[in-house]
């Protein structure tokens, strides 16, 4: 059963249309992440689900109940905001209890709920403190506490970690996922950080310019991006992309990039002369020759050691080429590197005109 269903959702601000007919089914207990660059409409979509923005066209249902005309308070959703939206004049306990007091719940129920939530989130010793006296991570936890105390049907997260530093973000990311595993509440999470999306989501929705580009599991999106946009957005560093022309001979389809002939997988339709973009993940480039891989001459520019791995900044012809290589801490042998190998099976091919993938099933 789908917990949240968006059907042909449009959003217009005056004459400007920012969301162009979104269709999405979020299953009960699922953790879905909306990801995309700034201005792609992900936060607007989330706010429409919350009821903070009116839906211009289309229908929204939560648990099979039409929500377009339902007030936010009656949608049984809870939202965690980017800037936490904590009431500065209230202490942690009162912030957590705010929604319950608004709903005139009994005092003893409220008190029990505060203690329960504080224990879940490790806030017990901070209940008397005001938000100004808390660290960023603690404030974030209070914001989550305010959401979970109401036991809503759906959690909505609007870039809740973007105000935290990198270390805390990683820590809170894990806490959010653990919390979801524990509570099992349907969650829709907005972020522009693809690492957050990859690590948190059951399914990722990649949005671009008010439209959904692709919906899938993190690994599906990583392995089988449907467009150059998704290929460039998912993965860190992003997929290398080169423009070229399809060639075909007895050995199969190929594209010549910077003088190097790169073999393509069998799943690429034979269409010699077609302008294409080929995508090669930095992780799938091999330093050693392998079966069905194409040797490619590179000009190595820079080696960035990352511990057990290294990022190699190189070029094929004039085109930049990034390689992620396992080094186990030793990068000394990389300085003289002039050739790498690209396995044909790992090459994605996109139509140059539309940016859509031509070998969807491969990988």
């Amino acid at each position: 059963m789908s917990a949240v269903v968006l059907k042909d959702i449009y959003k217009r601000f005056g004459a400007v249309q920012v969301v162009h007919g979104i269709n999405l089914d979020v299953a009960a207990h699922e953790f879905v992440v909306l990801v995309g660059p700034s201005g792609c409409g992900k936060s607007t979509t989330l706010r429409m689900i919350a009821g903070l923005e009116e839906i211009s066209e289309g229908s929204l249902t939560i648990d099979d109940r039409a929500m377009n005309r339902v007030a936010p308070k009656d949608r049984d959703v809870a939202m965690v905001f980017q800037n936490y939206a904590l009431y500065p004049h209230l202490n942690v306990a009162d912030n957590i209890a705010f929604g319950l007091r608004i709903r005139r719940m009994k005092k003893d129920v409220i008190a029990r709920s505060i203690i329960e939530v504080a224990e879940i989130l490790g806030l017990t010793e901070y209940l008397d403190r005001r938000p100004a006296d808390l660290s960023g991570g603690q404030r974030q936890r209070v914001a989550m506490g305010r959401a979970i105390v109401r036991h809503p049907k759906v959690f909505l997260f609007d870039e809740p970690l973007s105000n935290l530093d990198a270390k805390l973000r990683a820590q809170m990311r894990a806490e959010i996922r653990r919390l979801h595993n524990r509570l099992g509440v349907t969650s829709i999470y907005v972020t522009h950080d693809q690492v957050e999306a990859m690590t948190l989501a059951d399914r990722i929705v990649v949005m671009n310019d008010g439209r959904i580009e692709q919906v899938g599991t993190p690994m599906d999106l990583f392995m089988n991006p449907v467009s150059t946009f998704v290929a460039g957005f998912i993965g860190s560093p992003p997929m290398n992309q080169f423009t070229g022309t399809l060639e075909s001979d007895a050995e199969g389809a190929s594209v010549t990039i910077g003088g190097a002939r790169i073999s393509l997988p069998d799943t690429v339709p034979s269409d010699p002369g077609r302008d294409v973009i080929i995508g090669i993940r930095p992780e799938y480039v091999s330093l050693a020759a392998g079966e069905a891989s194409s040797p490619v001459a590179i000009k190595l520019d820079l080696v960035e050691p990352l511990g057990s791995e290294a990022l190699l900044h190189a070029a094929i012809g004039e085109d930049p080429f990034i390689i992620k290589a396992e080094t186990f801490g030793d990068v000394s042998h990389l300085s003289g590197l002039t050739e790498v190998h690209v396995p044909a099976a790992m090459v994605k091919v996109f139509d140059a005109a539309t940016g859509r993938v031509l070998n969807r099933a491969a990988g």
Partner: protein
Amino acid sequence: MTDLPASSAGSATGVSEPATRATEKPMRERLVRLADHFKREWQIYVMLAPMIIWFLLFLYKPMYGLQIAFKDYSIFRGIVESPWVGWEHFETLFNNSQFLRAVKNTVIISALSLIFGFPVPIFLALMFNEILHALYRRTCQTIVYLPHFISTVIIAGIVITAFSPSAGIVNTIIGWLGIEPVYFLTKPEWFRPIFIGSGIWQEAGFSSIIFLAAIAGVNPSLYESAVVDGASRWQMMWKITIPSIMPTIIIMLIIRIGNLMEVGFELIILLYQPATYQTADVINTFIYRQGLQSGQYDLAAAAGLFNAVVAFVLVMTANSISKRVSRTSLW
């Protein structure tokens, strides 16, 4: 007295010396930092200079003249040559029933203005914030801001006309109700309500701007979060808007308490008459009559100094109470 052994004496000075050095060093460091800052940001100090000069010339330099409150001042002998008389003028003041009446009236009018006048701009700002129709809101704001820009003399003229026993709108209305006309401005019991009411009418709208600005500064996410939590507009006003602007309210209250002894005397001078002195004469009108009309500058200076000291004590007290109770203060 026992002489300290040399070692003890040494240690005694040894304790104080580093302490002195410790205070000297940060002071020197601070001066060096200030000099560096001045060199780097001299443009800011240049921009600040006119204001500082204005303060020095018009607020600090006149303080030199305060000493005449303790002298038998004569404009022919000047401030320096006039002989000292100590607290004589203050004794005269506190034995003067007119001054004591002025103090009492000042306190009563100020307190009533504070009680009735202070909440009105807050209320107006909250109401403006609730009006969603932009044109309607702007129209309402213009209507309530307008009296602020009218000269006090014209305000007084409007008040005198409105309460006139022959053609005033107030007497016309009560005439319709079959009540005899009342010459309000000659009745001591009516002076305070009229003065306070006209003050509110003139200034409440304009004073609401500062609270509106504070409301505009409230994080919109707080309201959105409350909407999702199920709060009504009324609940949001009480539980978010008012607590969020409370620091501004407190700061404005402290400033207002500091000005408690400063009743807007221009309007009083324009509205009062000997028949209403009993309830209308305040310290500032007393100073005006004694200082300018009777030429008793030293006595007027003593009254002014008393006024300033009381205001200073009030603002310090309010600030310290506020700091302790609400964590909000002017300094």
